[in-house]
């Protein structure tokens, strides 16, 4: 008996490894479940309930299977950077990192000095394979990052953005791989910033008159153009989670737009000065904004509340696939890492040559690399732990062959999403709207409102007319009319039990008092 007791006591403190493994599996399968299970208790229809219960069970099983398959399907592991002893990660220089890693990765960190053709910006394709570099004075180049090959390079008068497109003095132009101008998009005006929503094939541009243009690149039609009305801005970012466009304005506001509504979806006052940079986390729930009030704020996009505020300046912001935040300010780059609970702490820092002004930072997808476009060219630094180590061939394949790329393009065109599917919460598609019951105000509330309206009407001063038209009786009549107008909407509303408003009471004849089936026996008044 003593032995049994002992084991019982110790069992409490020693968790079994099986349980650990199970918990880990639970955690992993949670992300594959894509949200909470539906509540089936409210259903009245038994057949539907049974069918949905079976489906929910299948979802659970498939999530578990995906979680179990993870360790076999994903060959690569995340990068990391750990400081030893007294040193901190943000003091570690790029040179020491480059010395420690293998040759292949060391080649990924480089500096391209291109002093003549103006401040450079760069962008990577979604698979991280190609990079397009644009200098403001008209230099455009496309580079294959895998082999560091220059695919195409040409010069124009002036240039701004990417994706085989850039805006010149007046309009954006589309160029093909060989550098031939294919389209001139006149409708956009002079764009300050371009964004491409690749699943919808929509090109979004914001121009110097603060007009937002949405154009479908596959058919060429202009889907929408809206006047934002908030002044010229060049801070524009697309939210990868729901394809909504975020604009940062000089009043400190951030607005979010979709192509099917004239008014922005959301307007948030973020900063006390102009918004200088904007970035969205790929998970869809986090937004980082930087303003001229020298603050960087992290916002929760579900509640539209500030999560954290940091005192720092930033001209450019970017989130990596693994949630690292890069900020560029002057000639310094700071990288922040999430240490649990959205508490971002400085992770790495990189200082460039003093005179360089950083224009844009962007993380390279599926690699631990950060690309920096600055006034004298291009740099790229290694940031361990920023990229997703395992790519999915059907989503984005850095090792794509020509044939695969062509097939992918055709499939992407077939699956082109309509602009109407862009919404703040993309999970809403396919859900059923609950039957809306008209909200009836409580009687007391309605009465209070009526009182308020009457009081407001009574306080209106009627203008005193001249030339003998200023009779007190007329003024009193006008005032009465105003009061009646204020009362009218409340009287027209149906009463609480849903019956239509009681019609004016007419003289009730004997015929009306009898039930309907006996009415023909009522004494009729002869004419």
């Amino acid at each position, binding site marked *: 008996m003593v032995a049994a007791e002992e084991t019982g006591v110790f069992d409490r403190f020693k968790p079994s490894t099986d349980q650990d493994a199970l918990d880990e599996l639970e955690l992993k399968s949670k992300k594959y479940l894509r949200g909470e299970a539906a509540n089936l208790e409210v259903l009245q229809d038994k057949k539907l309930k049974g069918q949905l219960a079976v489906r929910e069970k299948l979802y659970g099983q498939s999530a578990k299977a995906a979680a179990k398959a993870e360790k076999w399907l994903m060959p690569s592991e995340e990068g990391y950077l750990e400081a030893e002893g007294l040193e901190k990660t943000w003091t570690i220089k790029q040179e020491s990192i480059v010395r420690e*890693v293998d040759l292949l990765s060391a080649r990924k960190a480089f500096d391209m000095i291109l002093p003549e053709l103006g401040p450079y910006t760069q962008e990577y394709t979604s698979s991280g394979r190609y990079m397009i570099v644009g200098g403001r004075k008209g230099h455009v180049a496309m580079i294959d990052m895998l082999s560091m090959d220059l695919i195409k390079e040409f010069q124009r008068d002036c240039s701004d953005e990417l994706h085989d497109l850039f805006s010149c003095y007046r309009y954006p132009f589309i160029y093909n791989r060989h550098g031939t101008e294919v389209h001139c998009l006149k409708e956009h005006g002079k764009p300050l910033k371009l964004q491409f929503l690749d699943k919808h094939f929509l090109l979004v541009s914001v121009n110097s008159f603060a007009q937002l243009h949405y154009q479908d690149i596959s058919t060429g039609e202009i889907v929408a153009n809206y006047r934002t009305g908030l002044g010229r801005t060049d801070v524009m970012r697309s939210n990868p989670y*729901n394809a909504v466009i975020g604009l940062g304005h000089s009043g400190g506001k951030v607005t979010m737009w979709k192509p099917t509504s004239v008014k922005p979806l959301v307007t948030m006052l973020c900063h006390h000065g102009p918004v200088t940079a904007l970035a969205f986390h790929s998970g869809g729930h986090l937004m980082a904004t930087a303003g001229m009030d020298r603050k960087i704020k992290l916002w929760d996009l579900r509640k539209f509340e500030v999560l954290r505020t940091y005192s720092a300046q930033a001209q450019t912001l970017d989130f990596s696939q693994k949630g690292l935040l890069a900020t560029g300010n002057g000639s310094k780059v700071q990288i922040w890492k999430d240490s649990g609970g959205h508490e971002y702490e400085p992770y790495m820092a990189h200082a460039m040559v003093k005179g360089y002004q950083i224009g844009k930072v962007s993380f390279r997808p599926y690699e631990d690399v950060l690309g920096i476009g600055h006034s004298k060219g291009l740099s790229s630094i290694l940031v361990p732990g920023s990229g997703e180590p395992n790519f*999915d061939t059907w989503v984005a394949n*850095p090792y794509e062959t020509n044939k695969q790329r062509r097939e992918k393009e055709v499939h992407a065109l077939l699956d082109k999403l309509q602009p109407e599917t862009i919404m703040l919460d993309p999970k809403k598609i396919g859900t059923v709207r609950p039957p809306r019951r008209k909200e009836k105000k409580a009687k007391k509330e309605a009465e209070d409102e009526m009182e308020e309206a009457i009081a407001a009407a009574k306080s209106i001063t009627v203008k005193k007319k001249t030339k003998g038209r200023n009779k007190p009786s007329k003024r009193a009549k006008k005032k009465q009319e105003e009061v009646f107008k204020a009362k009218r909407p409340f009287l027209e509303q149906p009463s609480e039990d849903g019956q239509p408003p009681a019609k004016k009471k007419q003289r009730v004849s004997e015929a009306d008092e009898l039930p309907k089936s006996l009415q023909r026996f009522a004494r009729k008044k002869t004419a």
Partner: protein
Amino acid sequence: MKVKVISRSTEEFTRERSQDLQKVYRNYDPILRPLDKALEYTRAVNATKLDNIFARPFIGAMDGHMDSVSCMAKNPNHLKGIFSGSMDGDIRLWDIAARKTVCQFSDHKGGVRGLAASTNGDILVSCGTDCTVRLWKVPVLKMMDSSHSAGEVLKPTERYVWKHAFWAVDHQWDGTLFATVGAQVDIWDHNRSVPVNSFEWGKDTVISVRFNPGEPDVLATSASDRSITLYDLRMSSPARKLIMKTKTNSICWNPMEPMNFTAANEDCNCYSYDVRKLDEAKVVHKDHVSAVMDIDYSPTGREFVTGSYDRTIRIFKYNGDHSREIYHTKRMQRVFCVKYSCDASYVISGSDDTNLRLWKARASEQLGVLLPRERRKHEYQDALKERYKHLPEVKRIMRHRHLPKPIYKAATLRRTMIDADKKKEQRKRAHSAPGSITVEPFRKRRIITEVE
């Protein structure tokens, strides 16, 4: 300091030789797939539209009879063959794949009203208006190589004459008995020239008969006194009778749920019953605009096809109250008999215009052997359509069928009449004492009584 950076070697992630397959890597993380629901929805809409584009259900017509086709029979052992009998006494065996006559069995003097094949496929039983039952030997070898046959004419092996004209015949599953109906229900054996047993309940003509696939001794008949009668061969008298408001033209048992049967009625509806509870129909299948003449279940038991006097064929789900599919052609006149093929892929209809027509059961199905890739794609698209079928855009495209103008008009007229009746009923109930007028569900409304 400890450092690790993602570094992938190109050799590891690309194929070695050009004859190798391309390497595929998967990561099922939902974060890598934003907007996946919108993508699925778009694919569902596209899949529904493609379905409509590829919906070509009519395969071909089998021409040969000289008079309207009155009855058909499936041969349970041979998938490719079907028997059909016409009102001029001509019975033909068709090869469905070639759409040609294999051989003719012509001996009837009047119209052939019923055809049935025995379970082992050897013997074909036919009955007609000339008061005879004929048994024929089915030429098995001929079925195999139909290309040689030039429509040989065969003679019956047996001929039994009886007292009254026959209306229908059905063969027992797994047995040697068959039943004919006319003035009464007669049970015959292959070798006896007189019926082994006779049943009668009332003096009215019995117009159709069906043996139960699960219980070989149970059969259901329908008579012109608007009744459906159930018989058990082991008892000496009929078991149960259900009287409805209108005549039932045909009955079919559900092969997967043998306790359920569906009756094709004159009032344009089909009623599914459970034999254990005959006082209420399980489901009422409404969609035809004229009398339903014939009904046949798919071997899966999940669907059935009906042919109606309004020149259309409809396919219903076994528990669906509206049809899933409608087939019509300008050339197809009143449909008198329909059969669902034994592999659940085709529907055959015999109609007034002397033709048998072959249709696909699923209009946009790709026939033939599918590559595994094709099959997976079809399964994915079916799953997408199933998931998003309640959304308005998908539902509208799925439901859309072109109806011929007379059918469309007749359907709108029926709907107006039904709505008017309903409104009258509601008003009556509103103006009478609460509870004095009871609401009877439609499933019960068309039944008058059940008699033991």
